[in-house]
């Protein structure tokens, strides 16, 4: 894992003290809320429906045990005993007191964490593949590149007041586990015909009010020029992005309106100029960063295979582990989606337990997934059973990864001041309706995502089944969408028909699964069947 150098630590510490002073002036009435709001937002502190909410950055979703333990301690000490892992690989606390916020940031700084740039019209936390460094199918570990981008984008003065927020994801495998093409910039680390490592740039994707899939803007940028190319992409956006209309201010609108070819032309022109300035990081600096992500201590010579005699364990191991690049290891996904539970929520005790298990079984590493689960990336197969027993005892061994119970849901109207409808109760009802593990496995991979408003924090456009909550004359109403995907086969879900109330939408989903089970061909997932037979049979069954 990357470790702060003296500059990183000094920057974060200085920001803590700066914010401490800003909070003191606000509490003393020396500055107004209008003056204070942009300052607190720059430190991740929102004022939500019930209280202040603090969003803490987890760069590319990677944590060590010490950091995770502190996240649990913060939940106990400053919040109400739990945290919420988000679809941007971050964690949010829902009940923060303003007077405590500076000390929380000071506590975070002791473990090389912060909440900088988790809000505002700037470059947000860089996200990545949650199996990075472990995935059997990755070309290289994408995190050194993500870290390079993190350093470039942190406090970048030119990009501190962009037209809108800006999200970047970096992956290094053909299996997209980061919804890469639904980001403002999606970067895939690739190898060219000459065998050189570089970056493929997708620009102009996003969900929200106007969902778009990012087109390829450049097929290959040499690795050390990646930051300069990103700078060119941002510079064109910063110059021409719509500042007159918040709803048209994201880069996807610019790329769409002027066209990918014209956007590319302008970026290339800017890129050529930037290259003359010699701003690329030295190879030695990249190697310094990459060294932090080198082998975390994986043992060689281990054999694949483990005792599967406990049937409950075997089901979990089949569902919630992924192939590892090193023989004898697995990447383990801890589901934060128990039947009837709140997606992404974990108690302070559960958070601390996951920290302990990471130290004991995963070479002191954890990852937060954009699907609101936690990964232990480096678990010896011989340790899987002992790990599962401890997870099971803590209610963390739900075997539903990528099944209908593994629902993404935004906080919705239960917590969010922007929401139009509640998301969490729907997730609870759906996961309870489909609580049977056998039923879930019979349905197979089925990604269900719920947003409580058009801003799409719950990624409903990318759900095989998506649900969008809307306000219909003061009551909650839920639109049903089918056909989305955030994987390598990225597609945008489409609205099926008129909306439903809370109970109606659960029934409609159950009906859709029945249509799928009757129509599916051998080996087809829900999304495959939907793409093959289209919406009509589903509509007919749901609406008559």
């Amino acid at each position, binding site marked *: 894992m990357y470790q702060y150098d003296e500059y990183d630590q000094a920057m974060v510490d200085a920001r803590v003290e700066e914010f401490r002073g800003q909070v003191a002036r606000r509490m003393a009435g020396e500055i107004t809320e209008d003056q204070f709001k942009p300052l607190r937002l720059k430190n991740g502190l929102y004022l939500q429906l*019930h209280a202040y909410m603090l969003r803490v950055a987890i760069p590319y979703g990677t944590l060590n045990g010490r950091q995770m333990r502190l996240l649990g301690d913060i939940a106990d000490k400053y919040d109400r005993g739990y945290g919420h892992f988000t679809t941007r690989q971050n964690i949010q606390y829902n009940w923060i007191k303003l007077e405590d916020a500076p000390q929380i940031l000071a506590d975070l700084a002791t473990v090389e964490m912060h909440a900088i740039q988790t809000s505002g019209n700037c470059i947000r936390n860089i996200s990545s593949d949650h199996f990075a460094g472990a995935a059997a199918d990755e070309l290289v570990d994408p995190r050194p590149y993500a870290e390079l981008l993190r350093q470039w984008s942190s406090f970048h003065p030119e990009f501190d007041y962009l037209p809108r927020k800006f999200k970047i994801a970096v992956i290094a495998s053909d299996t997209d586990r980061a919804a890469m093409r639904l980001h403002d910039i999606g970067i895939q680390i690739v190898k060219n015909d000459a065998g050189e490592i570089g970056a493929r740039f997708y620009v102009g994707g996003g969900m929200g009010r106007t969902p778009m899939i990012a087109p390829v803007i450049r097929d290959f940028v040499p690795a050390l020029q990646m930051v300069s190319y990103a700078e060119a992409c941002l510079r064109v956006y910063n110059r021409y992005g719509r500042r007159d209309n918040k709803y048209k201010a994201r880069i996807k609108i610019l790329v769409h309106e002027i066209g990918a070819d014209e956007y590319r032309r302008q970026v290339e022109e800017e890129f050529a100029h930037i290259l003359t300035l010699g701003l690329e990081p030295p190879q030695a600096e990249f190697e310094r960063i990459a060294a932090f992500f080198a082998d975390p201590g994986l043992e060689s010579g281990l054999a694949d295979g483990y005792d599967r005699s406990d049937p409950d364990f075997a089901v979990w191991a089949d569902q919630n582990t992924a192939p590892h690049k090193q023989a004898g290891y697995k990447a383990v996904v801890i589901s934060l989606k128990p039947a009837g539970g709140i997606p992404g929520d974990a108690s302070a005790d559960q958070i601390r337990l996951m920290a302990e298990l990471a130290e004991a079984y995963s070479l002191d590493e954890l990852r937060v997934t954009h699907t609101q689960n936690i990964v232990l990336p480096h678990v010896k197969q011989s340790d899987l059973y002992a790990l599962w027993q401890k997870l099971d005892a803590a209610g963390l061994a739900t075997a539903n990864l990528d099944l209908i119970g593994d629902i993404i849901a935004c906080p919705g109207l239960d917590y969010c001041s922007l929401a139009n409808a509640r998301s969490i109760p729907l997730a609870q009802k759906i996961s309870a309706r489909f609580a049977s593990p056998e039923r879930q496995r019979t349905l197979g991979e089925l990604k269900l995502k719920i947003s409580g408003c058009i801003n799409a924090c719950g990624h409903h456009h990318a759900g095989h089944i998506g649900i969008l909550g809307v306000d219909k004359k003061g009551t909650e109403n839920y639109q049903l969408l089918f056909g989305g995907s955030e994987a390598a086969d990225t597609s945008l879900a489409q609205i099926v028909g008129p909306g439903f109330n809370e109970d109606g939408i659960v029934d409609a989903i159950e009906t859709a699964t029945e249509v799928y089970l009757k129509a599916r061909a051998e080996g087809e997932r829900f999304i495959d069947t939907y793409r093959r037979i289209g919406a009509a049979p589903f509509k007919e069954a749901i609406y008559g």
Partner: protein
Amino acid sequence: MKILTGNDLASGDVVWWDGKGWSRDVNDAVDAGDSADAILAAEEAAQRVNAGYAIAATKTAEGVRPAHIKDRIRALGPTVRLDLSLRPGDPDAASRVI
């Protein structure tokens, strides 16, 4: 009736104008009538409330009921964590909000 809500500056708690100050309980809210803007301006200037605004509500036999579901949830707390709401001992509290 028109009632006033906002947040306590230091704690962030949701508060309601009770005619003399700010209460955590929506049932203490009083009709601000035509004075809403003036009260909010004075209270915000004095740092006694943060991010205040006026909403429509009705007074029922059960208490004060904000017109919009968002404010009803604001008044109760998260419907999915009633243990953290202002009605932790009332299992039907969420259903009355909806």
